[in-house]
């Protein structure tokens, strides 16, 4: 197994920026991007997409409900139920994972997203040293965890 390089991982930072830029016209503030050696602090809503094919691992997007509500309202959505917030975080994870094919190639296969409610979700799934991107958008925090290796 070979871990991704820092260069490979920069694409995820750019994907996060791009997502908010296109959907909200407001860039997030990337507050850190690092190799996590301790416990990651997750939020209540988690979207998880697994990689297979030439890669192994997953992407986890973890966001508080308030951030997801604001994202949905900006898109004209008025149903802010828990089910819709989980759907939204899953779709964001799907988008960030799918966009990685642009750089990592078609050998990267992605699963449909799994959605989990509860901040323990992120801790239950990461390996020892995942890559973490923390951000703030419109005063709301979020974390994207990239845990991926080449086979």
């Amino acid at each position, binding site marked *: 197994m070979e871990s991704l390089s820092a260069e490979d991982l920069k694409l995820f930072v750019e994907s996060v920026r791009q997502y908010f830029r296109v959907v909200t016209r407001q860039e997030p503030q990337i507050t850190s991007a690092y190799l996590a050696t301790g416990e990651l602090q997750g939020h209540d809503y988690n979207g998880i997409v697994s990689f297979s094919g030439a890669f192994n691992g997953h992407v986890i997007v973890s966001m508080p409900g308030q951030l997801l509500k604001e994202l949905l309202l900006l898109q004209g*959505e008025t149903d802010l139920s828990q089910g819709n917030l989980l*759907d*939204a975080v899953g*779709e964001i994870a799907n*988008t*960030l994972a799918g966009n990685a094919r642009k750089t990592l190639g078609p050998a990267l296969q992605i699963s449909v997203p799994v959605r989990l409610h509860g901040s323990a979700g992120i801790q239950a799934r990461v390996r020892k040293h995942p890559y973490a991107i923390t951000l703030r958008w419109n005063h709301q925090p979020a974390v994207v965890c990239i845990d991926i290796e080449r086979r």
Partner: protein
Amino acid sequence: MRLLIVDDSNMIRSRISRVVQSGGLSNVSLVGLARNGAEALRVARATQPDVVTMDLTMPEMDGIECIKEMLRMLPRTNILVLSALSDKSTAIQALRLGARGFVAKPFSDDELKIALLDVAEGK
């Protein structure tokens, strides 16, 4: 033009519906929504859409399989792929199967409107 929206995300289905129904695409009417390829085929059989927006990564039947089956059943359907799989080879594969257009997620409302109009007008 009769539109069917196929995507496993409620957020995306609702967003496309709103863009279409907000008045920006007056000649397009929404005839159905589907959460996966299998459901899309059932809805398409009943509603005979002219235009279909198609996600690729979906449970039960993915978009690639659904494009093949849908064009076998309704060969004149104009399919616009809306997918997070934004690499060139995925787009080429979808177009080779008969899709008429490809838009990478995330997309803006304007990008979606332009792509839908292009596909609906057969450009």
